[in-house]
């Protein structure tokens, strides 16, 4: 294991984050805070409880997951897309590192960054709405697993994309709709019966539901299923990345 290489990549990526601290930390925290102000304090105070929690608190787990997902994908996809775009990828390809080390470095950094962000958002949320965390350990597990899984997904997008348009297309066209329809702002029990079935094909539903269970001890879908789905997506991403590096797909000609 080339530990020095992992450390070098990780440090490089984290330095990039702190160099652009406004875009990468401040702005997502700010925009999520706006949700709490609007949906939590302003509108939430006029809404009833959902599943025994007041609306402002109800949306906390979902909003944390939303930013976790979005940030993980964009961090990781940018992290690997930039060297491809600037040409500095030559060095990575010519260095004595295996795909495992590359992934640990890039995905590790992207996930660390979004976990930091998730925690910051949780802390900020406390200013606007009250919440408790019934299963803190599981909350951390869901936080970390989601960050890692979607950083991997982002990494794949970054490897696949050969233009900035493509880089943004998947997050914009696929991920954002799925997250908004993933039950961050509502319980799926509120949907008409048909849509309750349809929505179960959306993996984000399971993520948010799992997180909500960790917070409040109850959820739309069984937490074991949520957990299983995240693991499933993780395995799928690992397999895809392994295949990409094995074949050199889009990296080597």
């Amino acid at each position, binding site marked *: 294991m*080339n530990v020095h290489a992992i450390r070098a990549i990780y*440090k*490089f990526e984290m330095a990039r984050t702190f160099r652009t601290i406004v875009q990468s930390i401040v702005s997502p925290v700010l925009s999520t805070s706006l949700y709490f102000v609007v949906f939590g304090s302003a509108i939430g105070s006029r809404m009833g409880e959902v599943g025994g929690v007041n609306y402002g608190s109800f949306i906390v787990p979902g909003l944390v997951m939303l930013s976790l997902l979005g940030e993980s994908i964009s961090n990781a996809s940018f992290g690997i897309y930039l060297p491809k775009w600037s040409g500095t990828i*030559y060095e990575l*390809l010519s260095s*004595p590192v*295996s795909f495992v080390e590359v992934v640990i470095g890039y995905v590790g950094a992207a996930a660390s960054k979004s976990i930091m962000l998730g925690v910051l958002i949780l802390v900020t949320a406390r200013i606007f709405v009250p919440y408790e965390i019934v299963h803190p350990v599981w909350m951390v597990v869901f936080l970390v697993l989601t960050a890692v899984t979607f950083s991997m997904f982002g990494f794949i997008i970054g490897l696949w994309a050969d233009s900035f348009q493509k880089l943004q297309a998947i997050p914009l066209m696929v991920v954002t709709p799925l997250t908004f329809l993933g039950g961050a702002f509502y319980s799926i029990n509120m949907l008409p019966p048909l849509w309750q079935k349809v929505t179960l094909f959306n993996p984000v539903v399971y993520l948010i539901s799992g997180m909500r269970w960790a917070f409040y001890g109850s959820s739309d879908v069984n937490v074991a299923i949520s957990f299983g789905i995240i693991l499933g997506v993780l395995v799928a991403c690992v397999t895809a990345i392994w295949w990409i590096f094995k074949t*050199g797909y889009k990296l*080597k000609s």
Partner: protein
Amino acid sequence: MPEPQPPIVTITGLEKTYKSGFQALKRVDLTIRRGEIFALLGPNGAGKTTLISIVCGIVNASAGTVVADGHDIVKDFRAARSKIGLVPQELSTDAFETVWSTVTFSRGLFGKSPDPAHIEKVLRELSLWEKKDAKIMTLSGGMKRRVLIAKALSHDPTILFLDEPTAGVDVELRHDMWQMVRELRDNGVTIILTTHYIEEAQEMADRIGVIHKGELIVVEDKDVLMRRLGKRQLIVQLQQPIDKIPESLAGLALERSADGTTLTYSFDVQGEQTGIAQFLKQLEQLGIELKDLHSSESSLEDIFVNLVKEKS
């Protein structure tokens, strides 16, 4: 001429066909000797960068094997690549990084523990020390090129590939770079460079390979190559123009200039008899008076141009 050293890079039957169907390398066999400076020459698109990229792991070979310092570059890529440093042809750099951090990054990437003293030494040697905290985007092209060299040297490679290291570098800096390359060689680094400046190969290289349309057409000691293919000429300027080459000189490789004031006599460098003495005696006998005479030697450039012309 030192004794031929054992091979450090062995390339066997290397072929590359790009996805587009274009065959960039055709069964290349090449052995690089330990401690030499090897210059790879060839016109644009000949396949120089492709060859280097395969050895360095950036491009996958379609067929053939490469062994670098005893390690197969595919099966044993870690050991092989940690011996190799690459300065690419393109100036690809991280715009926002500082010189210091990008060079430190390279060392880590190649699995070496941090060694600020070594990085400092490399940066000083490349006259980059004053710029160590500058963002790369604020550097000039020549400085960026040196940053790439510093990155390649950060992990003490034993084999160094320089893909057109002096493209866009001014004359003074070019000489500095030649000096640096020689010092590296003296410290035991094997150097493979490509260049379009023939004088550079002539100045630096121990051996020369010429690649043309994906085929390695010549690999030869530089001196041998120049002796074997080099031509010499004796250029004679006459007091009085002559309107034709005299009958008695018809057997010689002579050329008369259009105005009739110069005669150019060509001869093979490696020929037993150059025939100069005979030629001059004949001129005297014919009563042709000389104003001036000088000899010229064909440069590697002429040799190169002829070789490539012959092939196509």
